[in-house]
């Protein structure tokens, strides 16, 4: 062992001298990959312990399957003329029709199949929720880390901005934005993502980043010669990331609810969504009698609730992974 442990004198020849064999047989990327897989597996074990989280995950998977059924159904099973979610029409019956054999959840006032609408919208709700949540968390984490690390002017700027964003009533603000420009599902997701990123999530992630910033390993990184960017990228963000991921789950919920609300007000340029379905029922005047035309609003309402609940439950499960103090063992 002593021969291996070379002193600096023995290394004068710049790598040409005695080589030290680390005893590692695999390339580093492969080891890292394995380690990531291992830590993923460990986290999965913890997550599995959480019943709420698993239940939520199963609901999300069910939604996923349901959404994936859409292209199959419209291409191979259903007649697009009858079952198209936006322009379909069934000429052989009165509308709105309660659930019957051909329309398992009935039809809406202009003769479109409710089940087809639900199925068509599922994929787009996923897209909207996940896209806006990812944007909000990526931007929010970065801003939070910057604000915590640099402090001073950067901090004040972003925190006051967050105050302003949080101060504005969220839905009326979105209504105003929606009336200024026609929002389709993409632009809506992006705007929602950024609004959330500059709002509450920045404050939460900044608070977490502040905790990380004062740890001695940040000093150690600075002594090692790490630049500010290196410290933020290699130390602060990885240590904030679990919490970011947790908030991503909660942001999906927020995005779906905002979409439903705005669709209900009819300010989004979205041809079909769960909120749009309730909007249709309302504008056609079928929401006056609770329960009489239940198939017009109950399925989409239930789906919105269940979808949001599922992401919330997964968030709760992840909370136990992220926050070891919540674990049972």
């Amino acid at each position, binding site marked *: 062992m002593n021969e291996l442990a070379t002193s*600096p004198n023995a290394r004068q020849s710049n790598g040409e001298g005695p080589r030290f064999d*680390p005893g590692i047989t695999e390339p580093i990327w492969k080891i*890292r990959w394995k380690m990531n897989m291992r830590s993923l597996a460990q986290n999965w074990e913890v997550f599995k312990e959480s019943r709420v989280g698993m239940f939520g995950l199963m609901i999300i998977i069910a939604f996923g399957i349901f959404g994936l059924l859409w292209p199959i159904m419209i291409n191979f099973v259903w007649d697009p003329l009858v079952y198209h979610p936006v322009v379909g029409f069934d000429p052989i019956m009165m509308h709105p029709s309660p659930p019957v054999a051909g329309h398992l959840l009935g039809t809406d006032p202009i003769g479109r199949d409710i089940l087809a609408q639900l199925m068509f919208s599922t994929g787009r709700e996923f897209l909207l929720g996940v896209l806006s949540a990812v944007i909000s968390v990526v931007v929010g984490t970065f801003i939070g880390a910057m604000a915590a690390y640099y402090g001073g002017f950067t901090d004040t700027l972003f925190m006051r901005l967050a105050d302003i964003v949080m101060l504005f009533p969220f839905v009326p603000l979105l209504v105003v934005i929606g009336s200024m420009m026609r929002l389709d599902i993409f632009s809506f997701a992006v705007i929602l993502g950024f609004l959330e990123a500059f709002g509450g999530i920045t404050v939460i992630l900044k608070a977490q980043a502040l905790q990380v910033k004062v740890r001695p390993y940040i000093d*150690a990184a600075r002594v*090692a*010669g790490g630049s500010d960017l290196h410290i933020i990228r290699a130390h602060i963000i990885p240590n904030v990331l679990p919490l970011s991921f947790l908030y991503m789950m909660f942001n999906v919920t927020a995005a779906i609810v905002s979409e439903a609300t705005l669709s209900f007000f009819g300010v989004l340029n979205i041809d079909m969504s769960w909120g749009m379905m309730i909007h249709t029922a309302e504008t056609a005047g079928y929401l006056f009698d609770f329960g009489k035309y239940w198939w017009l609003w109950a399925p989409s309402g239930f789906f919105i609730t269940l979808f949001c609940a599922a992401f919330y439950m997964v968030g709760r499960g992840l909370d136990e992974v992220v926050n070891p103090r919540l674990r049972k063992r």
Partner: protein
Amino acid sequence: MALPDSGPTNDVNDVLVRVQNLTKHYPVGRGFFHRQHAVLHAVDDISFEVARGEVLGLVGESGCGKTTTGRMLVRLTNPTSGSIVIDGTDVSSISGADMGTFRQKAQMMFQDPYESLDPRMTIFDIVSEPLNVNHIGNLEQREERVAEMLTRVGLAPPATFMFRFPHELSGGQRQRVAIARALVVNPGFVVADEPTSMLDVSIRTGVMKLLAELREEFGMSYLYITHDLAVARYLCDRIAVMYLGKIVEIAGSEEVIGNPVHPYTRALISAVPVPDPAVVRPIPNVRGGVSKPINPAPRCRFYERCPAAQKVCKESDHPELREVAPGHFAACYIL
């Protein structure tokens, strides 16, 4: 860039670190409407030198400015005034690309091995970080170098440690990792901020031995910050005793321990327990608690607690360091 090679020189009298009139003041209670009214004198006008290959111990009680001094030496904290020259480089004026070179010359070891390692990084990432951020070597060379350092600090075989996380290691092992990280760039000067104080007594000796060995082997200089006189005596060539931001006594280790002249040093040494039940230790005859470092009055800092205080100590400012014996300096009027 190649891996750093700074061979040790045998010239012991060569000064590596020269600190002159180093001062750090913190404003206290500065508000928006009122002007700052109080200044905390964390480190107040201290000067010392560390020779190449020498270990200087910085001893003192909590809050006396030891750590602040150490942090200023590696530029984690900017001094209020004074100059620090390490290996010919003025620390306060480094900027840009020179910073990288400086980081390879001066490193720091931290007190708490549980907090000084990023929990989300592997041991390899932690130890190779200084190489990484200074763009030293390629991946293969870094791997080699890290493995070599880990072996050297007693974490062998390195392959079993490199791809683990800090929480999988014990306190002693973590501190060895932290030592490996500090030494991986082969610095000439290391500030060791109580690297053994958080460790279990049984592990402490091992780490101290390692530090002593590494010093011999790499020809490094340490500024060893500690509150433990026994540790300082074991590791250090010279000891500087600090009290409230001032160096009150500085001399060779044995001289300070065996022949302390400053009343504060005497009190410190008399407080060290002796492992013999028959020995009755004299009660240290210092009074009161620690004096306040905020806006200290212009008199000897130790005046309130000093058993030998006289009129001159109260009426004059804090005494300068005087050479009471060859190489033995103390700051006291009544010697």
